[in-house]
């Protein structure tokens, strides 16, 4: 994401003009997965949205440290623009609705977002891993339905040709990210740091560039 996503002028503009940006190096965190070390100058390998969920997460917070939106794994420039745009709109609504319960508001905003993109109630309300596995097993065959995930120059999910096979993975990742904000709206960053598995689970994903670093 360093050399691919952040190098895009539109991404730089929206982040620098509207957000205060910070980062945390999760090296040493057992939930952070693994990575074949690569330099910033290494050519970026092909990545689809959501790759490396344990390696990288993009979270959006209020100045009080309340997380109101998340996107895990790799995000292309277009993906990040869409997520940052959604987060910015939601933040403005949170500010304008401080008198009402922001947690309910944030949860409902994510439900509405998923519904507007074509996810149905049963998908939004899925709770357990078995449902996730079954959903992936029933994934649409190659060349199937159009994507329901916003952003991405590749609604098919990847810059790689014939990449429809990844669409179910991408949609599943997107759904889970938004489900997180439905289940844990306005969770404090400290709570998440105490237990990142609430967001990233217990899996072990990893990133690799097309050439390995030293």
């Amino acid at each position, binding site marked *: 994401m360093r050399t691919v996503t952040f190098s895009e002028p539109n991404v730089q503009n929206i982040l620098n003009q509207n957000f*205060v940006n910070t980062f945390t190096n999760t090296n040493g965190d057992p939930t952070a997965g693994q990575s074949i070390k690569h330099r910033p100058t290494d050519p970026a390998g092909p990545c689809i949205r959501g790759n490396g969920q344990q390696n990288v997460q*993009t979270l959006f917070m209020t100045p009080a440290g309340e997380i109101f939106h998340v996107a895990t794994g790799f995000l292309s420039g277009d993906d990040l623009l869409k997520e940052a745009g959604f987060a910015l709109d939601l*933040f403005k609504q949170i500010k304008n609705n401080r008198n009402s319960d922001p947690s309910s508001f944030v949860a409902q905003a994510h439900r509405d977002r998923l519904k507007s993109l074509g996810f149905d109630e049963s998908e939004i309300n899925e709770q357990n891993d078995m449902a996730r596995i079954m959903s992936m097993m029933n994934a649409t065959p190659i060349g199937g339905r159009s994507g329901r995930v916003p952003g991405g120059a590749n609604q098919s999910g990847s810059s790689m040709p014939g990449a429809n096979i990844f669409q179910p993975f991408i949609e599943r990742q997107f759904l889970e990210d938004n489900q997180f904000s439905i289940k844990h709206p306005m969770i404090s960053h400290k709570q998440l740091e105490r237990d990142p598995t609430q967001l990233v689970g217990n899996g072990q994903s990893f990133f690799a560039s097309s050439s390995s670093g030293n």
Partner: protein
Amino acid sequence: MRAMLTHWGLVLILFISFQSENFGQEPMRQWSSRDNRQSVEASFQSYDPEAKQVTLQLQNGESLVVDLNELGRSDQRYVKSARNRLGTVDDAQSKGVIKKEVTPARPKHRDSSKVTTAYGIHWTPGIENALSNATGSESSEDDRPVMWLRVLGDLNGFM
């Protein structure tokens, strides 16, 4: 001779009084994060045992709230000894060391001195600094959201 001793005695008394008035003010010192990657010049203001948070006062007068366990060990020991000197938050307030705040203080201005730029993005190191910078100085209307990137690796080095 007697007049000279009286004069110097008076000077000594004034000196001691001056020191006593400043006795309740904690001195400026270097505070470091637990991983020793970040440091800040500030004075100890108070410790909240329930939240386990330390309030520091920066040189520009702004307040900075930090979790106790985010500080280095020597800083944590300093907090403990400062607590013994100043007592609880209520004690510190009653002694006039800190003012009782009804609402959280807003930063007087956004501190851009520690912002670095990498890949065209302006980064504020440390979540607490970012949250402070995101807080509007006049009102919540000026508040900005924070984009927090949790990533395995250093932004400028190997990942």
